[in-house]
């Protein structure tokens, strides 16, 4: 079984982001970038499938600028076998990313595509579902457990009220949630080994996909700030304030 796993380069989750003064976006120059945390979980799951003998090859794919290669290297150090970078310096929106992935799926014929449930920059939560739709494949989103069977997979999903288990035919697209696994740290020898693993670089044009953005960003602004509150000395004062000042209890 071949697994394609998506790895997106995003602003590190610890960074306190700043909106650009001209309101065109968020400051990303000189900001620490990392692999989208959900994608680390997707890579971990793919590598575990390989270690268990279920998967035979794990291919890490990123779409974005040349530096996204570093993100692919991280995936290779975690245990992916090879990488594909689809290079683009433009704003790739989820529909475009899904179409590019579809073109790669047509080329690579994987049995499973694993993605993050959302990227922590744009928080769209759509790319996996879109890819599944375009491929006519089933989708198993927000995964907290993956069990690959013969021609189908039993997938447990985090839903509003708790957990749901579905059976989907293979091939399928899975998007992973936070509690599927805890991603490993790459060891130094594995980081060294990853430097020798192959990364193929493609241009968007090679895949013959229309990636024109459908949404234009009119403005990016700071959210309204909350007014500073007060510290209360004790529980009695707190209850008094809630009852008589805020009048919420």
């Amino acid at each position, binding site marked *: 079984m071949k697994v394609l796993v998506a790895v997106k380069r995003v602003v590190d*989750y610890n960074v*306190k*982001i700043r909106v650009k003064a001209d309101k065109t976006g*968020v400051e990303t120059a000189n900001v620490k970038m990392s692999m989208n945390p959900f994608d680390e979980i997707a890579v971990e799951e793919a590598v575990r499938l390989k270690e268990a003998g279920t998967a035979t090859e794990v291919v890490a794919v990123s779409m974005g600028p040349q530096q996204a290669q570093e993100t692919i290297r991280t995936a290779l150090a975690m245990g992916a076998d090879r990488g594909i970078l689809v290079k683009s310096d433009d704003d790739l*929106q*989820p*529909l475009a990313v*899904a179409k590019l992935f579809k073109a790669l799926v047509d080329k690579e014929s994987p049995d499973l595509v694993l993605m993050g*449930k*959302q990227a*922590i*920059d744009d*928080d769209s*939560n*759509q790319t996996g*579902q*879109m890819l*599944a*739709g375009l491929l006519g494949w*089933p*989708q*198993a*989103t*927000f995964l*907290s457990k993956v069990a690959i069977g013969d021609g189908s997979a039993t997938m447990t999903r*985090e*839903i*509003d*009220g*708790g*957990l*749901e288990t*579905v*059976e*989907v*035919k293979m091939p399928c697209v899975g998007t992973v*949630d*936070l*509690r599927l696994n805890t991603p490993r740290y790459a060891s130094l020898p594995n980081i060294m080994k990853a430097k020798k693993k192959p990364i193929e670089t493609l241009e968007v044009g090679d895949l013959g996909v229309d990636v024109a953005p*459908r*949404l234009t960003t*009119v403005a*990016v602004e*700071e*959210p309204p700030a*909350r007014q*500073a*509150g*007060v*510290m*209360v000395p004790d*529980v*009695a004062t*707190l*209850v008094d*304030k*809630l009852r008589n000042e*805020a009048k*919420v*209890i």
Partner: protein
Amino acid sequence: MAILVIADHDNTAIRQGTLAAMTAAQQIGGDVTVLVAGEGCRAAADDAAKIAGVSKVLCCDSPLYAHHLAEPFAALILTIARDYSHILAPAVTMGKNTLPRVAALLDVAQISDISGVVDADTFVRPIYAGNAMATVKSADAIKVITVRGASFDKAAHGDGSAAVEDLAAAEDPGLSSFVGQELSSSERPELTSARVVVSGGRGMGSAENFHHIETLADQLGAAVGASRAAVDAGYAPNDFQVGQTGKIVAPELYIAVGISGAIQHLAGMKDSKVIVAINKDEEAPIFQVADYGLVADLFEAVPALEAALAS
């Protein structure tokens, strides 16, 4: 403009998120049809007909839609999608799971989790865990949108009397099937629509101690929430998680106990009307968003709070 709102419901009644999506639809402006699909969902369709401003309810009652599996549900929506300029669903599991599939098959973008409507093409949505607000304009003929429930008032519900029409089921793509579910059962109000939410974090220290949060919540008629750290540690079930990747809540009162206030947690609760933080670390970032902060050991403060509320 013709607008389709996909209802979130439990077969007997519509859920709150549907009313928020309805408000967004009214702000866009146009003729609003609500789709209720499920198994034995007639009562929910009748309930949807009572929402103010709805002109028609489409009811598709079939076992195929019992669990809103994305593959058959998207196929159903696609049988009618091209009749509308806007397709809206609440940003709950159902909407988040199904609508991007619909959008891709219509070859249009999805605008996720909107928190505001500027005009029929232009919407506001939070990005970077709500640390920035993007205003985006869509060039697509059909706008597919999920709506953040906490950001819109609930449409009036009760007086409407729209007609309910049957909609035929679509062909089953046969890609997926439902196996089972484990739902956390609770008498408490639902997290995303509760007036008061009491949340516990890693500071609770254990699943047993987490019961302090539940006792306090019950005293206030509140829903219970948790930080990711508390959920990961097994103190609370996953569907209690509040934050960027959990539930987004905006109650009148949010009480955070033993929660540090990481940006990913703040993303899910900072629009609450009144925020109370109880934490023993006076430097905890949660205090920066709290209206009332109490620096205290929670194991003393929470029982004292319970006692004070009881008196």
